[in-house]
């Protein structure tokens, strides 16, 4: 192992070493001049030699090596005016750069957009997309709720399985194989209202990045993709209020300085209320007191001690609460579930080359289902809780080598179905025992410029996972106490991305990434539902392992106004987990006995065309793909398509700026129909007709397609007050896309005949929406 690491380091630094005589470093942070937010991924480059550049890291820090003397450097960021700075460099210099929002100098903004678009060609990343929050807010969405995760589903290589569900599948990976991070904290359940809405309140978010291939070594824990969501830091210049009133929920965000230019806060909340409003109508009725609502609360605070030290404290708390009251039977059900996360981060700059981020992270997801009838009550609890400590370094060795290295330790506590029941004279429980595990990782990567043509991102990630007691072995019945090690796993995952410039505006990129995953969400539902349980790798459940090969050709046209790409991928997955075909979803003390294990493969071709400048912007994405699984105990060990295997998937997103006040957007999606397992036979048992199923997922529903439209009207811009109306129509031509199939027995007693009939159920017909948004500030 040590030898491998040494070879890796020698290769990296050997390839990338350069003569650094008479060179100095320019470093600093890039901020949004309007609110003081640090800017992720801003470009800083020498105007006379644009190849000589750098970009800000996840915390807004950059470092650029230049030879001694005079230089003109430019800083650019999408949606902001460029800033050109003249420097006469004779020593290491710190320059913090503030960029102004680009509402005035249109051409300069377009240039920044083009620079951003150029990253598509010159970066090493394959399958990486950064979503712009401003554009997301313009897009038509279900019930007017802006949803980051549903927008991700419009990108090539990303599919959803059921309509309206925010659960998604990336390049053939399962829904649990996406690492979804909110300010570095893993979010285990991303859906409200059975997944129809995501838990991410767009008002509180700064940026969202999707990595669907060529995962860099600083990310791990999941097999398929990363969705890295950063919360806003809070405006450190002035106070502002942003709010919105929608059909489903209302939102309110407050932010402002605590100490101007030094410290700021942001508080953001969202809550549904429609059934609260209906409560008076339920009064005196059979189901009085029945209610459902969800809410989210995001908070963040930061303090800048100096240019070298800054701390951030951020958190998220969200809940869905369902309450059913059946007064006549004194029967009630209470089902609360949700996530809590907290992140404490310390950014420290050792010098102008070495940046450190240290994080302490807590996150928790729990699901409770309680029922009571008079003195009898029962409660089912399951959840996952993590305590995580991580340290990440960015070392800007020189302009050819940018190193990242760090480590991560997580203590997981996974509580399976823990059941208790109380009644007259008894207090019972199933003695459910949580699983306790330690997960560690070490990584190093080098983003190296090998030559003008070649650039590479080479990394290694070493991870270990240990299952601890209390535990009774399912294999040999050995009993382990809390301090006993039950089972350990180790994995070394190399990552390799390379880019070759093939022309003025084109490049060829390739990547190979090995990934490992130790936590698994095993579900027998067609999408993710809140009662699905996260389970740990144990002596019985092996870690999932994956390898993805990607190859892409990237070309920009018309002076970078149009980005295009063709990417091909092949993904191989081991130790995939499914429930047995006879699993009914009940509570089971030996849940692992209900699992079956197998392999997966996915391959596809993604075509992408994006236009990001001009009045008309948007993209077209098309994916041709197959996603298959193979299990000993399913389908006679033959390959079968998954429910999210969509051979054809097309998305069209268009935004047209009609005037300074009006903006129109449209989304059209077309996809192969969802696979399902058909009924092949009927048989008689227990005096009734029963269903016998054919091969797994061997039939398909009709093709899915839908058109959504939205119109945004902005009121007259005032100094301290802005407002807008968003009108939307979901499923404009009322396409009856089936959500599921229902079987029934149709009996004609007069002629003594009967037949099993099937019907398709559509949940989402045409749905109009309207929302009103406003903001105030004391600028």
């Amino acid at each position, binding site marked *: 192992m040590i030898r491998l690491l040494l070879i890796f380091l020698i290769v990296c630094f050997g390839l990338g070493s350069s003569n650094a005589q008479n060179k100095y470093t320019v470093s600093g942070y890039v901020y949004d001049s309007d609110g003081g937010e640090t800017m992720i991924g801003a470009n800083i480059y020498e105007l006379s030699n644009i190849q000589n550049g750098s970009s800000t890291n996840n915390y807004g820090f950059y470092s650029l090596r230049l030879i001694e003397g005079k230089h003109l450097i430019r800083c650019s960021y999408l949606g902001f005016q460029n800033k050109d700075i003249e420097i006469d460099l004779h020593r290491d210099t710190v320059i913090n750069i503030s960029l102004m929002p680009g509402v005035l100098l249109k051409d300069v903004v377009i240039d920044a957009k083009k620079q951003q678009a150029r990253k598509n060609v010159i970066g090493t990343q394959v399958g990486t997309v950064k979503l712009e929050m401003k554009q997301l807010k313009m897009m038509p969405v279900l019930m007017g709720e802006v949803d980051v995760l549903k927008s991700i589903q419009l990108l090539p290589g990303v599919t959803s399985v059921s309509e309206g569900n925010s659960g998604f599948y990336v390049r053939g990976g399962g829904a649990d194989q996406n690492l979804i991070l909110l300010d570095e904290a893993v979010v285990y359940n991303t859906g409200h209202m059975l997944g129809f809405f995501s838990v991410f309140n767009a008002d509180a978010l700064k940026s969202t990045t999707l990595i669907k291939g060529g995962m860099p070594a600083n990310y791990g824990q999941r097999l398929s993709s990363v969705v890295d969501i950063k919360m806003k830091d809070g405006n450190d210049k002035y106070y502002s209020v942003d709010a919105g009133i929608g059909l489903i929920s209302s939102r309110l965000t407050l932010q402002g300085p605590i100490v101007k230019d030094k410290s700021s806060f942001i508080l953001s909340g969202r809550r549904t209320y429609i059934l609260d409003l209906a409560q008076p109508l339920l009064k005196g009725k059979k189901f009085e007191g029945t209610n459902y609502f969800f809410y989210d609360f995001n908070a963040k605070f930061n303090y800048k001690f100096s240019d070298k030290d800054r701390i951030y404290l951020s958190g998220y708390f969200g809940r869905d609460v369902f309450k059913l009251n059946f007064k*006549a*039977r004194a029967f009630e059900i209470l089902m609360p579930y949700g996530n809590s996360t907290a992140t404490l981060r310390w950014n420290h700059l050792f010098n102008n080359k070495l940046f450190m981020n240290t994080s302490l992270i807590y996150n928790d997801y729990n699901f409770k289902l309680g029922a009571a009838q008079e003195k009898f009550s029962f409660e089912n609890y399951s959840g996952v809780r993590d305590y995580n400590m991580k340290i990440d370094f960015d070392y800007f060795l020189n302009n050819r080598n940018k190193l990242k290295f760090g480590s991560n330790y997580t203590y997981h506590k996974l509580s399976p179905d823990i059941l208790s029941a109380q009644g007259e*004279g008894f207090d*019972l429980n199933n003695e459910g025992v949580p699983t306790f595990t330690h997960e560690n990782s070490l990584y190093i990567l080098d983003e190296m410029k090998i030559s003008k043509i070649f650039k590479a991102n080479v990394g290694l990630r070493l991870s270990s996972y240990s299952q601890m007691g209390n535990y009774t072995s399912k294999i040999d019945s050995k009993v382990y106490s809390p301090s006993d090690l039950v089972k350990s796993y180790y994995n070394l995952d190399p990552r390799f991305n390379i880019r070759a410039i093939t022309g003025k505006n084109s490049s060829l990129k390739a990547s190979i990434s090995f990934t490992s995953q130790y936590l698994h969400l095993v579900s027998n539902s067609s999408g993710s539902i809140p009662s699905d349980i996260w389970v740990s790798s144990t002596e019985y459940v092996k870690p999932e392992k994956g390898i993805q090969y990607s190859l892409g050709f990237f070309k920009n046209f018309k002076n970078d106004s149009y980005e295009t790409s063709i990417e091909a991928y092949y993904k191989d997955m081991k130790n995939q987990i499914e429930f047995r*075909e006879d699993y*009914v979803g009940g509570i089971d003390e030996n849940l692992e006995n209900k699992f079956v294990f197998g392999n997966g493969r996915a391959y596809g071709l993604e075509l992408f065309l994006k236009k990001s400048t001009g009045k008309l912007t948007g993209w077209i994405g098309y994916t041709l793909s197959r996603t298959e699984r193979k299990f000993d105990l399913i389908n006679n060990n033959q390959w079968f398509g998954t429910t999210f295997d969509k051979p054809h998937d097309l998305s069209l997103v268009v935004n047209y700026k009609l005037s300074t006040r009006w903006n129109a957007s449209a989304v059209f999606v077309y996809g192969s129909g969802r696979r399902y397992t058909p009924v092949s036979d009927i048989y008689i*048992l*227990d005096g009734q007709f029963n*269903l016998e199923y054919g091969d797994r997922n061997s039939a398909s529903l009709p093709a899915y397609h839908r058109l959504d439209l939205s119109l945004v009207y902005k009121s007259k811009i005032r100094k301290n007050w802005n407002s807008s109306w968003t009108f939307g129509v979901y499923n404009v031509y009322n396409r009856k896309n089936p959500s599921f199939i229902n079987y029934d027995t149709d009996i004609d007693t007069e002629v003594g005949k009967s037949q099993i009939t099937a*019907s398709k159920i559509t949940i989402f017909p045409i749905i109009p929406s309207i929302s009103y948004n406003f903001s105030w500030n004391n600028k």
Partner: protein
Amino acid sequence: MNRIIILSIIMISSLLFTSCEEEFVPSDVKAKQEYVVEGQLEFSILNIPTFVILSKSTSYFSTLDSTLVENLYIDDAEVFVSDGDKKVKLSYVCAKDLSFPMLFKLYVVLGNKIFNSEFCAYLDINNKLTIEEGREYQLHIEHKGNIIESITSIPENVNIDSVYFKETPGEKIDSAAMMWVKFSDEADVKNYYRYFVIENRKKLYSYNSLFDDLIIDGQTVDLPFRKPVDPRSPDFNKDIGFTYLRGDTLQFKLCALDEDHYNFRESFLFSNNQGPFSSYVRASDNIEGGIGIWGAYACEVVNIIVPEK
């Protein structure tokens, strides 16, 4: 603001209540036409004969009239059951040839279909098999060169302490009462249960009447037992829900069953429903060469009248 609220209510309603249903013709799927076994042994004071009903599955697209249904049953198989000591060939017997007491014994487990004169089954009509707790039973069927086999066992019997009634939960209904049962679960052994009710000599379907000892392992407990009826069935009395009318005569039977049998019964119940968010469930069978169940019960029977208030 008010307009938004009103619009919100309309919109939410449109989402929640206007889902539509249309006929759907699935693509043609090749039928498997498998052998279907419905076989049962019971250890109880009721002395119910061991039986096997053998049929074949048919295409999903079939229109089921009486002729087709009749043709699904197989009457020319050879069915053997071995209790470990002896191998007994079951006789193919039709309802019209059975005595009324024997018909009623079968009614208790098979329900109304026993009164159909065309009904036939393979029976241990003379109780040649030794039916006792802890014993294994092998099923062997031969039909047109095909072999169908299975094995099951009778678990240890249940220990009922008492069956009694309490007032209905929630709003009190004077004419009805909730059944409660006190019984003991054997410790450190995984136990599975199912209960059955004959109400005024009418067999209830035993809907949702399966449970295991997940939270009662080794305990003596008093638990409310819902009437085992499907709330979607036309026979369901909404006024009293899952309680019993006072004065009714009940035969309550609490049975133990083994794991394979329990798994089949549980998955069988779910196999006929494919909900909006759930995947399909394939009934877990213990039949080699076919589908269905060869299962056994050990049952304690209590006859009781629901007391007047």
